[in-house]
């Protein structure tokens, strides 16, 4: 965590990690007091809790990680109207690839889920699309040269 890095989050994603942070702080307090949190006996355990139960230092490191995210978070907001024709973070981009239509939402790594069409802005395709407009042909070259034709850009306010 030595390099300073911005964490781009939607407001929904930001709320989610604020909640996690609060839960972890409560858990740390209980652990320091030597109490067994009731939540561990629940069947609906949040994965975070279980991973940290054996290891207070790891719990501390996750709390520190979240604090680091809070310090460097930047909420994704739709750009001004005149810039809404350019692909930026938070944009939903309609593309044509290999003769097929697809749609991606360009989002930060913390919230990316390619199976649901949410592509990280740090992936090669996410990075390549940023800054382009409708009508542009974006070339992504791995060993395979793939052309993404931008058909549509939209932002949800």
């Amino acid at each position: 965590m030595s390099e300073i890095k911005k964490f781009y989050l939607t407001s929904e994603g930001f709320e989610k990690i604020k909640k996690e942070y609060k839960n972890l702080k409560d858990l740390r307090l209980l652990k320091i007091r030597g109490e067994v949190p009731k939540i561990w006996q629940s069947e609906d355990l949040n994965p975070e809790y279980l991973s940290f139960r054996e290891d207070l230092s790891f719990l501390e490191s996750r709390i520190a990680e979240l604090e680091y995210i809070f310090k460097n978070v930047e909420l994704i907001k739709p750009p001004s109207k005149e810039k809404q024709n350019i692909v930026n973070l938070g944009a939903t981009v309609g593309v044509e690839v290999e003769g097929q239509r697809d749609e991606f939402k360009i989002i930060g790594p913390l919230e990316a889920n390619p199976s649901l069409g949410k592509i990280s802005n740090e992936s090669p395709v996410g990075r390549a699309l940023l800054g382009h407009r409708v009508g542009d042909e974006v070339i992504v070259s791995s060993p395979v040269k793939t052309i993404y034709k931008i058909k549509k850009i939209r932002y949800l306010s």
Partner: protein
Amino acid sequence: MKNILDFLIKVGKLKEKKRRGWVLRNVKNPETIADHTFRMAMMSWLLGEQRKLNINKIIKMSLIHDLCEVYSEDITPYDKLLPKDKRQWKEMFNKWPRLPKKEKEKIFLEKYKKENEALEKLILKLPPPLKKEIRNLWIDYEEGLTREGRFVRQVDRVENLLQALQYWKKGKQFAIESWWIQIEELVDDPILLEFIKVLDKKFHQK
């Protein structure tokens, strides 16, 4: 102890279950789910060290990520699209499948539900702490809740790319393009992106 033994006997089935993606592509004597899991755990460990991740957690997560396939099918992204005529399959595999957003969400949820039920059935009689740990590691992996979850999910795809490149290099019986196209959309971890460049160099550049 008996319940752990029963669990291990069931998990042993993954040593025989062939990965469906290769079966569909007629790869001779393809890897099993356990083969993929083994190398994925190794890859998570070796590359995860460089990301200063919780190695204990990512190795366990890799080991359990496909356990549900003891009972559930090995689902591929092409399943919903395969034409009845098998002669058309080869052409279909040349492209990475593209689906509308709603269809993506539907497939994601259906797969999640099926695999979750299969996992629950498999771990049902394990001692509660182990059961909970496996369940929570799987949820973290599936949803990418933590750095480790997001990393292992990407390692899964990179291990698959490595295997695809090895089969492709050997027999060239399928097109490799769709693997590269998907990987450029799925992976954003800097260490894995660096590793992918090494794969490119090893398998494509003379």
